[in-house]
């Protein structure tokens, strides 16, 4: 177990080090996400919607597209020069490779959220101070589920041409429930002041657990061929 944790830490740090060295992904993703928020803000005539729900929905669009780009880029690092084969030849569990990739993706997604969320809040006059903790919690739990699915499919599609478009096609419909639940939960939280203990958050956690488990099981198979 400690061996697996050591491997996961090493693999994650390797990904983050490569990212830190090139900073190719995060810059691109942040700019894309900010662009999406700006385009939608202009399209909606700045604050045309009713506060909370619009802001979270638009943030979700930014996260979704940014996320796809992150998943694709971090997996491209492995496919470039076939470094993935090097990992597969090492005596490590394939699940560790998945876990590490997921962690690296999550770190990048949280970094993205840290930049884009204030921008969205600013453009949509969204009062976060009502429940900042709840907002962060719901978004974090949702992102874990999204990244769990995204990491799995990024590994699957990275060897095909069209990797990016294909990945978005595969991941968006599957993660629709996450978007649906988190926007509903946040709408309830901000507009009606309902507590988070309701069924929504539990559903999100169920989604996370289910797809983490499924991805862990399937990942072994995915990297072959």
């Amino acid at each position, binding site marked *: 177990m400690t061996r697996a944790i050591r*491997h996961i830490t090493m693999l994650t740090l390797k990904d983050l080090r490569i990212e830190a*060295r090139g900073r190719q992904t995060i810059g691109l993703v942040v700019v894309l996400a900010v662009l999406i928020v700006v385009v939608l803000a202009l399209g909606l005539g700045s604050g045309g919607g009713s506060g909370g729900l619009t802001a979270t929905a638009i943030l979700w669009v930014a996260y979704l597209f940014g996320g796809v780009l992150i998943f694709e880029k971090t997996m491209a690092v492995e496919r470039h020069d076939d*470094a993935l084969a*090097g990992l597969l030849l*090492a005596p490590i569990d394939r699940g560790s490779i998945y876990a590490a990739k997921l962690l690296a993706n999550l770190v990048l997604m949280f970094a993205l959220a840290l930049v884009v969320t204030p921008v969205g809040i600013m453009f949509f006059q969204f009062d976060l101070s009502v429940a900042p903790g709840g907002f962060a919690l719901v978004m974090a739990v949702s992102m874990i589920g999204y990244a769990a699915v995204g990491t799995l499919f990024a590994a699957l599609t990275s060897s095909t041409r069209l990797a990016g478009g294909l990945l978005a096609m595969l991941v968006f419909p599957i993660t629709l429930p996450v978007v649906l639940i988190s926007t509903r939960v946040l709408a309830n939280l901000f507009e009606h002041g309902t507590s988070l203990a309701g069924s929504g958050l539990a559903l999100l956690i169920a989604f996370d657990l289910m797809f983490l488990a499924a991805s862990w099981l399937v990942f072994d198979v995915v990297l072959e061929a």
Partner: protein
Amino acid sequence: MTARLTIQHADIPRFTQAGAIEARTGQSDSRRVLRLAQSESAAMLPAVHAVGVHKVLDDRPILRDLTFDVPAGCYAALLGANGAGKTTLLRLLSTLTTPTRGELEIFGRNSRRQGALIRAGIGLIGHQSMLYRDLSALENLVFFGRLHDLSEPGVRAMDLLDFVGLVDRAHDPVKTFSRGMVQRVSIARALLHEPRLLLADEPFAGLDAPSVDTVERLMAQLNEQGMAVLLANHDVRQSLRLAERVLVLRKGRLALDAAASELTVEQVLREIEQR
């Protein structure tokens, strides 16, 4: 550098940047790059033992009914036209994929059930470098060394970089290297865990003459120290010069399996090209 290191530059010539070789004065011949063959009784088992191996990819048979042995410590060349199945065979031997039918054993270990054990005993040099281009040569080797649970990955990595003659470039990112240098780092990467079988997939492709010479010599040295080498190659003349055994694949079938000394270039070419 102390005596407990696995790799010493004792009887190993050092390579300069240009690829030329300057032999160093030897110390004691007990120090070797690889501590293999001599100690292990398992070394008596053939490095590769294939019986009726089939591989189907995309509904196309790539390899058909391959039955052959490569003895431990043997330097074998795998020849064949493009698409004959050389790369697929090496991927099978390195357990990156499993055979569709048939049995494959590497040092007596079944490729389907004992993949992890096999991986501990083989090194693969692929078409691509299998390195992270944004990391330095040393970082790459230390990273993969840690994945292989080496006790002192840093020391081992420096020794191997010394072996392939790249110590002075250890801290430069791999993306700044020439093709020949990348190939040498690849070889170092494949040797990290002291494998007993080296699989090399066209390691000379795209290298300039001095680099080819360097890589040739590195592989010959490793073979002398007891490592079995399976070299997939398309240069017949070179393969006959380097290897003891020659295997020819044609359309996924084994067309020829003979000692290199008994073969002429023309014979081998005929086997490769026969329709």
